[in-house]
């Protein structure tokens, strides 16, 4: 068969999709320009007559302590004395509420609202620069780079304040060399609850007592890590919060009068302990302000803010500590911390409320002017309105100060309103799109989808063509890309890669269409009657069949946020509907039941039906029972879904939490046994299947893998679960051993997995050969090989001549598993090969199974049951496909080569999405299972590639498995033909050797199958891209559509890669089979 054209066409196809996605995402994800200017002391001028240098003046506080408790949710900070049965996370920080109510002049507790994305690095950026984050930054969480914008730490350093930092090492990466002294501790290992906190506590108190600092920042990570590891509702959280309570108390005791204490959380957490999204549970942290001396003018009044936005911390702290507000901050000062106008002087130093507001407004206005000069994304009308508002306010303020009278209270509130509206304007406009890039990406994607469809329809013609007809489009793409690059270089002096790629993709797509048009019309002339088919496609009647209607509905569902939120159930619904369609359709064609005798026979409608009613009945019952299995596993898989925050009354499946989180040991044991049972069943079923088709007899690498590597892998996985589920405090004396096992077992599993996959790749044949004595073959009734007579023929020609002969003999001897040779008495064939009938599917199946166990290793233990359901559903799908093909074949209704019809392909790709949900994943960022990065690496990583790829493998496990297993759809009907009627017609079962007999049809069918699979996925990607483009100003775009797009696009990339791996594995097997035949023939003929 022709492997190269198939592979290159697929590669080219997927690269078109990649280019389209790259362009669109480049234009869609938000970009905010960073203003690289810094504020100076001279910018902050007092409006009064006396021109005092702002920085020289005595600030309100000389020193400040910032205690950042990562993920300090507002619920943790509140204290409810009436709550007699507090959950582990409730009422554990009494100090905050106690102080706030007993000393109202000295302290306050507010909810502290973060701007999404609520990841730690984004938050640190947010509350040091005072600006709003954009969506793109989310990806930088693994490798945070230094902040270049003006920020609080920079300003403090510039004014000669000594900033001492201790805690989360993210700060050290964000502010390299900005600290007077810094004690960073590693933050990446989520399982480590104590290193960072204990490290801080060793140094914190000594530092506070000493006099070597002005601002002290301590960032505790224990609470956050505890949330990630155990969730908030766990005794460990209670311990951690109680510890924090003690820390805050001790710090408060050691403070001096001129020091401000700020205790704050950078974000909250969901009920499962995760964060990153924008639900209120994640955004609402707590902030607690305290000073030993009175700082508030009075007890809390009506004017207190309900919620403090996180951006407001920057200007407040800057003015309290006497440094200029960072240049690009858009926050507003926290008014209760400043004395009302007229009460300054005397005991209370520093700025009054109005002065602070004025300085703040001036700074914000200056930033707005600079920014609008650099970028044009803020709408001009709102910009003009803001400018007018500011000039009016400023003249009013200046005139009142100039006349010496105290400005009215109304001025303060209008200044506040101005600051709020600036922030709102910024928030709404920093969703800046590049419409040109988006449109280009969309059109390339649309063309790519269309091309995928065309490829699947024209696969027969394209494979026949030399090189798959690919040379011209690729050359055109290169030419166009280079041309655009040159033009850009000449006109602008630099080149932008995206546009070169776009030009290349576009031109090659157009060229392909032109060629496809010609190709599509050519077979008509060549084949006459047969070519009618290619002329008539793309008519609505052919396109609006249910198997294509279902993907269409699926794509349409991606345009509505409700359906995206309920995606798991929607996909299951569609999958179920399409599965029911198969028997209904078969029945409609009259193929499900053996035709009733009286009418048809008498009418003579079926000429000579080569079918026995018993076979039909058997096939139908197999089909219906597999349908039952499919439906059952579909229904059960619904109970493994996770919950989105938008789904109110939803409880995440208990299988999703790792075993170590269970507190009831009996429940834990039941879950463990269930998981191990499903793992065992997975292994057993795979081996049983291979054994059934006689693939476990030879001594090749693949068989070794199936016999030893797969069971060993499962055993080590089961042991790993057992070890990781043991609570830390039990078996104290075995602690060292447990730690070693936690490290060694998963790594051993990884090694076994690698070994198994490599063995399959290197030696994929599972054929057991048995050579008869030469004498018996000589006496056979078969004619001796004829090529001996003709001596002058080259070996190559001999082979061509010979393969069919040997092959004919072998076909007679083909039996699977059982040791019954050729039937003829004296004419025993020279060679008997066992397992040849499933030579293609066996390695693919084994590869798939091994990969499945490897991916299961990255999941929580309970997911083993879901993976077993996946296996069952996949088997059911394959058997349904095989049975329906056989039924159609029996009635002679269908003989279109090895072509896989749309229905099973659509079912297959919908199942990929369905199991994405059924393995506990969701298309949202907080639901990413970060724990996967620590399997086998409990101490964290040094690089970023390995953890990122582990998390990707975990997230897209279902897409990976279904993509790799895709070629099985092609093999299974052939594999099952023994059970069907074809074998009974006197001809021996040939099974997958049919593929070898028709290499042309094999390659075209393989190409068609892969392009169809890609098309269904690609159409979904296109639909979610459309959703993001059309609804880019929708309320839910950042919550629902953008994450959905990112997940769909990355899932598509992963699917492409693994589909290519699956296809190349098939090609590798084909190569090996070819070699095997070559080796065999000379031997047997000698």
């Amino acid at each position, binding site marked *: 068969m022709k492997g190269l054209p198939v592979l290159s066409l697929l590669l080219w196809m997927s690269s078109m999709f990649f280019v389209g996605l790259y362009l669109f995402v480049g234009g869609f994800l938000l970009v905010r320009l960073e203003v690289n200017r810094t504020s100076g002391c001279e910018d902050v001028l007092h409006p009064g007559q006396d021109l005092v240098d702002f920085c020289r003046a005595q600030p309100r506080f000389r020193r400040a302590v910032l205690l950042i408790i990562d993920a300090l949710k507002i619920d943790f900070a509140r204290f409810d004395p009436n709550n007699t049965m507090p959950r582990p996370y409730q009422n554990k920080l009494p100090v905050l509420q106690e102080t706030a109510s007993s000393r109202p002049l000295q302290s306050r507790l507010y909810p502290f609202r973060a701007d999404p994305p609520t990841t730690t690095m984004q938050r640190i950026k947010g509350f040091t620069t005072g600006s709003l984050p954009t969506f793109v930054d989310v990806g930088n969480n693994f490798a945070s780079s230094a902040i270049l914008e003006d920020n609080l730490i920079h300003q403090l350093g510039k004014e000669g304040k000594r900033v001492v930092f201790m805690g989360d090492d993210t700060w050290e990466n964000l502010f390299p060399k900005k600290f007077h002294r810094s004690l960073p501790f590693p933050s990446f290992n989520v399982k480590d609850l104590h290193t960072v906190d204990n490290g801080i506590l060793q140094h914190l108190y000594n530092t506070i007592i000493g006099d070597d600092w002005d601002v002290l920042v301590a960032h505790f990570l224990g609470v956050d890590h505890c949330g990630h590891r155990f969730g908030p509702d766990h005794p460990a959280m209670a311990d951690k919060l109680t510890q924090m309570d003690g820390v805050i108390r001790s710090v408060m005791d050691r403070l001096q009068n001129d020091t401000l204490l700020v205790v704050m959380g950078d974000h909250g957490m969901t009920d499962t302990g995760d964060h990153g999204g924008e639900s209120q549970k994640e955004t609402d942290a707590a902030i607690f302000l305290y000073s030993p001396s009175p700082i508030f003018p009075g007890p809390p009044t009506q004017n207190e803010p309900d919620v403090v936005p996180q951006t407001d911390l920057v200007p407040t702290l800057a003015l309290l500590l006497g440094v200029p507000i960072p240049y690009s901050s858009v926050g507003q000062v926290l008014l209760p911390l400043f004395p009302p106008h007229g009460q300054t002087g005397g005991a209370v130093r520093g700025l009054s409320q109005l002065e602070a507001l004025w300085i703040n407004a001036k700074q914000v206005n200056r930033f707005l002017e600079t920014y609008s000069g650099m970028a044009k994304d803020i709408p001009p009308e709102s910009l003009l309105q803001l400018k007018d508002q500011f000039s009016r306010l400023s003249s009013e303020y200046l005139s009142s100060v100039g006349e010496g009278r105290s400005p009215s209270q109304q001025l303060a509130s209008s200044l506040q309103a101005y600051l709020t509206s600036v922030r709102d304007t910024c928030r709404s406009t920093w969703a800046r799109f590049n419409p040109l890039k988006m449109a280009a990406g969309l059109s390339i994607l649309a063309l790519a989808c269309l091309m995928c469809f065309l490829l699947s329809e024209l696969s027969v013609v394209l494979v026949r063509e030399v090189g798959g007809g690919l040379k011209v489009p690729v050359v055109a793409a290169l030419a166009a890309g280079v041309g655009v690059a040159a033009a850009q270089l000449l006109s602008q002096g630099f080149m932008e890669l995206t546009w070169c790629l776009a030009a290349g993709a576009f031109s090659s797509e157009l060229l392909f269409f032109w060629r496809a048009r010609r190709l599509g019309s050519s077979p008509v002339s060549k084949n006459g009657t047969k070519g009618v088919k290619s002329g008539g496609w793309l008519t609505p009647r052919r396109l609006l069949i249910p198997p294509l209607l279902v993907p269409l509905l699926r794509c349409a569902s991606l345009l509505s946020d*409700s359906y995206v939120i*309920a995606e798991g159930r929607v996909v299951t619904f569609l999958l*179920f509907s399409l599965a029911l369609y198969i028997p209904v359709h078969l029945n*409609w*064609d009259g193929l499900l039941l053996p035709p009733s005798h009286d009418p048809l026979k008498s*009418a003579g409608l079926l000429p000579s039906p080569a079918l026995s009613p018993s076979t039909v009945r058997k096939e139908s019952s197999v089909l219906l029972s597999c349908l039952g299995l499919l439906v059952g596993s*579909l*229904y059960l898989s619904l109970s493994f879904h996770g919950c989105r925050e938008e789904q109110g009354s939803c409880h995440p499946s208990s299988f999703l939490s790792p075993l170590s989180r269970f507190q009831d040991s009996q429940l834990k044991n039941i879950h463990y046994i269930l998981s191990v049972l499903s793992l065992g069943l997975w292994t057993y079923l795979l081996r049983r299947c291979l054994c059934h088709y006689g693939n476990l007899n030879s001594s090749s690498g693949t068989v070794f893998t199936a016999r030893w590597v797969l069971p060993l892998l499962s055993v080590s996985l089961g042991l790993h679960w057992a070890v990781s589920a043991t609570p830390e405090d039990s078996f104290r004396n075995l602690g060292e051993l447990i730690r070693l096992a936690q490290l060694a077992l998963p790594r051993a599993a990884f090694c076994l997995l690698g070994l198994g996959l490599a063995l399959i790749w290197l030696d994929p044949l599972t054929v057991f050969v048995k050579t008869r004595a030469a004498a018996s073959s000589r006496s056979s009734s078969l004619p001796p090989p004829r090529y001996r007579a003709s001596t002058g023929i080259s070996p190559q020609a001999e082979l061509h001549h010979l393969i069919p002969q040997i092959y004919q003999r072998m076909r007679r001897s083909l039996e699977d598993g059982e040791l019954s040779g050729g039937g003829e008495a004296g004419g025993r064939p020279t060679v008997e090969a066992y397992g040849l009938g499933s030579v293609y599917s066996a390695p693919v199946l084994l590869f798939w199974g091994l990969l499945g166990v490897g991916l299961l290793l990255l999941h929580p233990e309970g997911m083993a049951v879901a993976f077993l359901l996946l296996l069952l559903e996949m088997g059911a799908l394959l058997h349904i496909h095989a049975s329906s093909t056989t039924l159609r074949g029996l009635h002679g209704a269908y003989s279109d080569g090895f072509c896989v019809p749309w229905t099973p392909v659509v079912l297959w790709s919908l199942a990929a999405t369905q199991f994405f949900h059924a393995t506990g994943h969701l298309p949202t960022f907080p639901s990413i299972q970060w724990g996967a990065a620590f399997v086998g690496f409990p101490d964290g990583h040094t690089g970023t590639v390995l953890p990122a790829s582990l998390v990707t493998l975990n997230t897209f496990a279902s897409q990976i498995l279904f993509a790799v297993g895709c070629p099985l759809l092609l093999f299974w009907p052939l594999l099952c033909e023994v059970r069907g009627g074809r074998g009974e017609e006197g001809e021996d079962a040939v099974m997958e050797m049919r593929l070898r007999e028709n290499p042309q049809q094999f390659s075209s069918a393989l190409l068609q199958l892969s392009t169809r699979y890609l098309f269904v996925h690609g159409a979904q990607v296109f639909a979610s891209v459309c959703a993001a483009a059309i609804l880019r100003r929708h309320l839910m775009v950042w919550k629902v559509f953008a994450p959905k797009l990112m997940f769909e696009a990355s899932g598509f990339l992963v699917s492409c890669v693994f589909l290519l791996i699956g296809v190349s594995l098939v090609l590798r097997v084909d190569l090996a089979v070819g070699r095997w035949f070559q080796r065999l023939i000379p031997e047997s003929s000698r």
Partner: protein
Amino acid sequence: MWDHEIRAMASSHAIIAASVFMATVLPAVLLPGFSVYGSHLLWLYSVSGAVTAVSVAVFWLLGITPPTKKHTLGYKLSRLFRSCLYFFLSCLFFHTVVVLYGAPLIESALETFSLAVLLTSLTTLRCLCVLGPNVQAWIRVFSRHGAMSVWDTCLQITVACTVVGAWVGAFPIPLDWDRPWQVWPISCSLGAMIGFLTGLVAAPAWIHYHRRQLTYKCK
């Protein structure tokens, strides 16, 4: 060609549609506080009861029901019993299918079962009336060459319309519009009802326009 049957079919369908209409209007007039959304289950049962009664009566009067081979009372009784049994089994079947489609298993089991009763009275009952309690014949009817009379074709059309209507009726459930008809199972039963009414209209019309192409093998 089939003018007589088509006329009979159209009039019987008109009667059935009228019965649906009456089953909606009459309780609304007689019972205080009756509404399709508010007391949905009541409406559902009243409609299914009306459709059941009227269909049985109409088809019996028209004599569509396949002739019985024996005329003994015991045989007739056993037929009647089997019909009732099939009716009940079909309710269970629809209930299972609807649950597998994603309906809540325990929470609103009564609602789900009521939907199953409605679907049964709109589809299975018609099969019972036209074909008798003979599952083999039911399965045969739903194939391309399976229809053996105008009534079989009509049966194909109405059943397909009803089932597709109920299937489409599930679409609005996940939407966040907060409308009263999005509550389970109102949208599905309304969809099934609308599909059924469409089928009642469509079947005679389709047969009328395709009467030249229709050929039936004699039994």
